[in-house]
């Protein structure tokens, strides 16, 4: 993916760029809001990572300007302001996702890749398939190897989200945000218990596990042979 990073802090930027490049992405870097806006409008990027506090042009104003130009470039807002209202403001300005500093790089990478993939994926897809696991969004049913799996509504949404991002790391906070629609700190890893329940249903009686734990990052669903 081609990623635009707009971040004025040199150390944070180099850490971020290094990590993204090591993960196989092409990265362009702008150090202020004006340059960032020019670059966002002059080239085509898959994802932009934009810091909220920038010299010359504020991050939120940059995002509004990009949106005013009619670009649907997926944008991840980075901010040291982590309160609920800041998040809402960031998303209202046209950001697609919001991450509070300091963040784990795995979290950022997972979100950037989810954003980039979201654009590539066709939204009209009604059946997700990973290996012999199949999820039908319209029929609200899941089956593996032809055997129907009985899922609770929340488990279904959890599996749906994981399969939409098949082959990608999905973090616990991403799950809490997209499956439960909450953004708070759940104290204990409540998500893990939900995952292990889901895992018991889809992986337990099969010799090849599909739902994997990615240490220090989150979870990923994929065909184990790949």
């Amino acid at each position, binding site marked *: 993916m081609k990623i635009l990073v707009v971040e004025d802090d040199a150390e944070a930027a180099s850490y971020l760029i290094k990590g993204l490049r090591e993960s196989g992405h092409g990265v362009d870097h702008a150090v202020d809001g004006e340059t960032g806006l020019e670059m966002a409008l002059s080239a085509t990027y898959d994802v932009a990572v934009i810091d909220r506090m920038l010299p010359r042009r504020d991050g939120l104003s940059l995002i509004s300007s990009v949106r005013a130009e009619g670009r649907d470039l997926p944008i991840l807002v980075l901010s040291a302001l*982590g*309160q*609920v*209202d800041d998040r*809402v*403001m960031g998303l209202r300005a046209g950001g697609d996702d919001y991450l509070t500093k*300091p963040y*784990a790089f795995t979290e950022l990478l997972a979100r950037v890749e989810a954003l980039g993939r979201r654009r590539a994926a066709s939204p009209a897809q009604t059946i997700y398939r990973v290996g012999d696991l199949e999820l039908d969004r319209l029929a609200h049913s899941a089956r593996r190897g032809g055997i129907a799996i009985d899922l609770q509504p*929340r488990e279904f949404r959890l599996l749906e989200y994981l399969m939409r991002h098949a082959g990608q790391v999905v973090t616990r906070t991403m799950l*809490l945000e997209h499956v*439960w*629609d*909450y*953004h*708070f*700190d*759940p*104290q*204990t890893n*409540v998500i893990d*218990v*939900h995952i292990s*329940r889901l895992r018991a249903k889809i992986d337990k009686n099969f010799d090849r596990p599909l739902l994997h734990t990615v*240490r*220090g990052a989150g979870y990923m669903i994929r065909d184990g042979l790949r």
Partner: protein
Amino acid sequence: MTGFAKLIRTTAFRLVVTYLLVFVLFAAALLGYIAWNTRRVLEAQLNETIETEINSLAEQYRLGGPRRLAASIERRSREARGFFYLFADARGEQIAGNAVNIGAVLQRQPGWHELSYTRAEDGASEQTFARVRLFRLPNNLTLVVGHDLDDRQRMRLVIRQSMAMSLALVFVLGGIGAWVVSRRVLRPIDSMTEAASRIMAGNLAERLPVRGVGDELDRLAEHLNLMLNRINELMAGLRDVSNNIAHDLRTPLTRLRAGAEEALRTASTPEELKAALDRTIEESDGLMRIFNALLMIARVEAGAVPGALADVELAGVVSDVAELYEPAAEEAGLDLALSIEATPVVRGNRELLGQALANLIDNAVKYGRPADQGTKPPPLRLALSTHDGMAEIAMSDHGPGIPPEAREKVLDRFVRLEKSRAQPGYGLGLSVVAAIARLHGGSIRIEDNSPGTKAILSLPLARVEGVTR
């Protein structure tokens, strides 16, 4: 700045000067009016006197012509009653009269005049002012009759003297009065200023003086004192927070550093190093969570209301969060029973309310296990109800409970009971709940569930029986 310039800038000085100016203006206006009126009366009197004299002379003229008039004037001139007489022929020669140097007088037009002349019998050159009336008689004779203006001059002198006198009095008395008044008004202000500068210099316990007379200045001082008290409380709170942060961040920071050092010294394989780094990241994540929780409490307590508050269906939030925690509770060997007895709507922030609930359930899961491990423990109970215009969320467990004397204290930051030390946590969960409750105009209280703990979060309803707030 010179002393005088400083004096000019004081309110006392300005008050004094303003008072004086007003007094002087009043006094001058009053005296001026009196002087003007007196002069008018005197003038009218004088005119009347002169008219009478003229009438009497006219009678003489009518009876005996110029000759008799001249004789009469001659006689009257000698009596010297303050009258001025001049009777002259066509060439300007004096026929009769009591004045010398009369040339200028005769040039005047008929009518009223005021002039100075020298009285003939005085011999000296003393000038006298007079008000006169000039007549032209047949045969180009000129008659001037008048009266000295001594009275008016004396009057003017008296007025001038009294004016000077009263002005001096006004200056002295008004000055003293204004000074006294302004001192009375300004002394309390000065003492307030002094007290304020002492407070600013660091004597934070000092308060502004209240004289107990209940006037505006007292009220001002009382309010400023209340403000100082509030600032003091806030500062104390802030100090506590920073002390606590320093204290409670020190432990995990020390652990973080020790772990990293230890790994650097002893770890020999990449796997060991990696494990140590993982632990380091975990520790720093913990630090971040403490930090975020503290920031949230601080912001909520500072009254920074996050975003716009909206109507929130509590039942939805309660069942969402309960559903989120149910597997975790089960993992801990506890059932989570949900009982929704009402569907209240509160004005609030869904995320924060979710966070508060999550903390309550998390506490119950962590500390809600009965001491008796043998049998299957009774379920944790999460109940939503309404009571007296408040929505109540009650989280009950059957754990060891919280002793009555500690129930207030556990709401404070970083307070962890001795028994809870074995569990992971930072002692911020209930503080966050308390802060969120306060933000929503509600409260959190801890009750005995005999045995166990019952934490009740009360929130004011957005609407009461169809009445929109």
